[in-house]
């Protein structure tokens, strides 16, 4: 604004003798509401031009800004987070989503493309670091980078992680339309997911996946970047035939088994739980569980520990496809009841809910039959022969490290979850041809890689690579 010479201000004042009689409220109101006819408006304006008091009155009597007519509507201060903007953001996110699906489809057709996918998944880890709500993701990343992965590439896990990436796709889309702000950061994630699976799993698990990719990204990126050559055969085969994946996961029939569980978990995830509580709870539980060991029914436990492979496989696939948002936001608190039920609390211990481990678990052998990993070799046949209605595992020990959770119990039942109990992977420790079949009484994991499992028969199994290989002294 230009300076106005002082003389002008001064003369403006002096030549504005305050009129003695002020305008009445009626006229001033009508003036402010622009409802005076032109001649009258001119009269009022002439008065106002010289009468500071009446100007004052008009200014003070201005309505609150919200009431102003539409002409002035864009005077409103902050344009952000208004509906139109969110609408555009949603549209933009949708476009990005579609574009990335297209790119991935193209990549899926190229045999050598998994490396680039892995690279982009590495980027995903970086993205995850930036995503505000996923503090657990951060922890996971840190752990992963610190502890090198053993050379034996767990293909099964790789694949599962591949699939794990798919779930966020739809989740991101769902969130996009909900109009929430983290949308954009999420919608980038599908870039590193396989298109075929993205669609398959997304179709089955709508609405899941708020921030779930964040937790998984680093985990899959790490083994892959280290063992790129070793693991290529399997992913290639898998990626090259997206159709088989679809066959493995028959969409319409199975989702029912898992869908109810997963979304309900997603809904509950909101309050952050301090991790200290987890550790306390679990310490207490470990002791408690050891005292209960005597009650074990060994044989029954063996049977029930094996999840029903045939029936469970498709649904387990399902489970992997939607590792879901559960873990990323909350560190749950774990406990084991006197009956050996594994329970989880997402609200710091106020309410407890039983976690269906077997129902949400996958015996690793069941879908990687061609190339066995050491941990899966022996258990695979057993698992497939075990009846699905077997009695439940009696849990004795649980160990949680952020979203990384281990639970063990009768008959060598050892389950691993990397999404805070959303989905479980059956781990069958074996070393030198010996399989862990005893009752697990204690589990200690110092980090996601290094852990020790102790059975009631005082066997000690250790792993240095997150449960892929085990040593028994």
């Amino acid at each position, binding site marked *: *604004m*230009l*300076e*106005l*010479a*002082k*003389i*002008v*201000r*001064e*003369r*403006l*004042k*002096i*030549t*504005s003798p*305050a009129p003695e009689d*002020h305008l*009445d*409220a*009626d*006229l*001033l*109101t*009508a*003036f*402010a*509401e*622009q*409802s*005076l*006819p032109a001649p009258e408006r*001119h009269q009022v*304006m*002439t008065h*106002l*031009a*010289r009468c*500071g*008091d009446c*100007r*004052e*009155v*008009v*200014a*003070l*009597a*201005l*309505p*609150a*800004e919200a009431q*102003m*007519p539409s*002409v*002035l509507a864009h*005077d409103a201060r902050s344009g952000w987070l208004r509906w139109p903007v969110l609408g555009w953001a949603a549209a933009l996110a949708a476009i990005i989503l579609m574009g990335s699906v297209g790119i991935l489809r193209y990549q899926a057709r190229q045999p050598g493309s998994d490396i680039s996918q892995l690279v982009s998944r590495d980027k995903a880890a970086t993205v995850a670091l930036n995503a505000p709500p996923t503090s657990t993701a951060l922890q996971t990343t840190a752990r992963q980078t610190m502890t090198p992965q053993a050379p034996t590439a767990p293909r099964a896990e790789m694949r599962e992680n591949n699939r794990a990436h798919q779930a966020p796709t739809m989740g991101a889309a769902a969130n996009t339309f909900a109009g929430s702000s983290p949308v954009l950061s999420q919608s980038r994630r599908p870039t590193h997911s396989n298109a075929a699976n993205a669609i398959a799993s997304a179709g089955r698990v709508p609405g899941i996946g708020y921030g779930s990719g964040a937790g998984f990204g680093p985990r899959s990126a790490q083994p892959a970047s280290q063992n790129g050559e070793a693991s290529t055969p399997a992913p290639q085969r898998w990626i090259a035939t997206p159709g088989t994946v679809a066959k493995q996961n028959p969409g319409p029939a199975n989702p029912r088994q898992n869908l109810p569980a997963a979304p309900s978990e997603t809904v509950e995830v909101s309050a952050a739980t301090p991790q200290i509580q987890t550790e306390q709870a679990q310490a207490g539980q470990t002791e408690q569980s050891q005292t209960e060991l005597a009650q074990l029914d060994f044989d029954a436990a063996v049977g029930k520990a094996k999840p029903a492979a045939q029936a469970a496989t498709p649904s387990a696939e399902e489970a992997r496809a939607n590792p879901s948002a559960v873990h990323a936001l909350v560190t749950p608190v774990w406990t084991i009841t006197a009956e050996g039920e594994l329970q989880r609390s997402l609200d710091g211990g106020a309410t407890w809910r039983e976690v269906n481990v077997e129902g949400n678990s996958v015996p690793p052998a069941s879908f990687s039959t061609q190339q066995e990993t050491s941990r899966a070799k022996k258990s695979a046949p057993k698992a497939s022969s075990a009846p699905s209605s077997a009695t439940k595992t009696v849990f004795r020990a649980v160990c949680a490290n952020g979203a990384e959770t281990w639970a063990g119990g009768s008959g060598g039942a050892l389950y691993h979850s990397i999404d805070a109990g959303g989905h479980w992977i059956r781990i069958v420790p074996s070393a030198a041809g010996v399989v862990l079949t005893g009752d697990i009484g204690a589990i200690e994991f110092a980090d996601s890689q290094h852990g020790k499992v102790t059975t009631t028969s005082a066997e000690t199994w250790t792993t240095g690579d997150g449960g892929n290989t085990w040593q028994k002294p």
Partner: protein
Amino acid sequence: MSATTQNSAVQSAVNGLLPELYAKSGCEQVGLARESFAAILIEVGEKHTTPATSEKDARTFLLSLRVEELALARACAAGHNHAWELFLTRYREKLYLSALRIARQDAAARELADSLYADLYGTTTRAGERFSKLTSYTGRGSLEGWLRTVLAQEYVNRYRRTKRLVSLEEESEEGVQFAAAEPEPTVTADSRLESATDEALSALSPEDRFVLSSYYLDGRTLAEIARMLGVHESTISRKLDKLAKSLRKKILAGMMQRGMTRRQAEEALEVDVRDLRLNIRRNLAQESPPAAFSEKSAEARPRERSG
């Protein structure tokens, strides 16, 4: 009804429009009789028209009135209970919120609103009669806007009163402030500069002058001025720029007409601008807490008197 003889145009316009307006006003609801409504319309019409007004204009005028709010206000003034209930449900909260926006302090706002209520209800008696302030509402603007305006008027009156008291006390107590306010360099401005400025100012249209005064004297923001005039902020911004430039040009021209060289004229103005800057800075330093409404106009008056 003695007024009827003065302006038959209004009278006949009211007669012609009465059924329509009466229906529109919802007088039955608030308990206002048809005759009294007609009388009100005539009164309002005569207040805002001249004897020369044609019947057509009178009709237009009557049709532009907010008869529903007018009827409500007048029914309240006449003491109809139902009207009061309606009035309170509709306006009580708004009135208080408006008072709060004007006074900016809860206590002051309450006091302001309460005193207005008293006026509206009509505790003041005039010759033994209850007189409600609502009687002076004529339906030219919205009743809500009118209430705000009345509040603002009341506030300005009061503020002026209390302001005077306070400032006198302050000045006598704190000699510093008094001294600081004093050295307003009574510009021994060249009379040619003065008269050139006056000439330029007097040539302004009322609206330009309004904008100029609001901005430079009252310290209104562009947004406020825009809302007062019902235009966009950028319009005001452009207008002010243009005004400042054209004023400068005109003043220079005026001074040159009065026998100054261009250089002299420019110098006279430049000196002035620098003066102003100093002045603003000093004012800013002094008036640290922004007053409820612009200090400038209030200050202006004492100075006028002294000068």
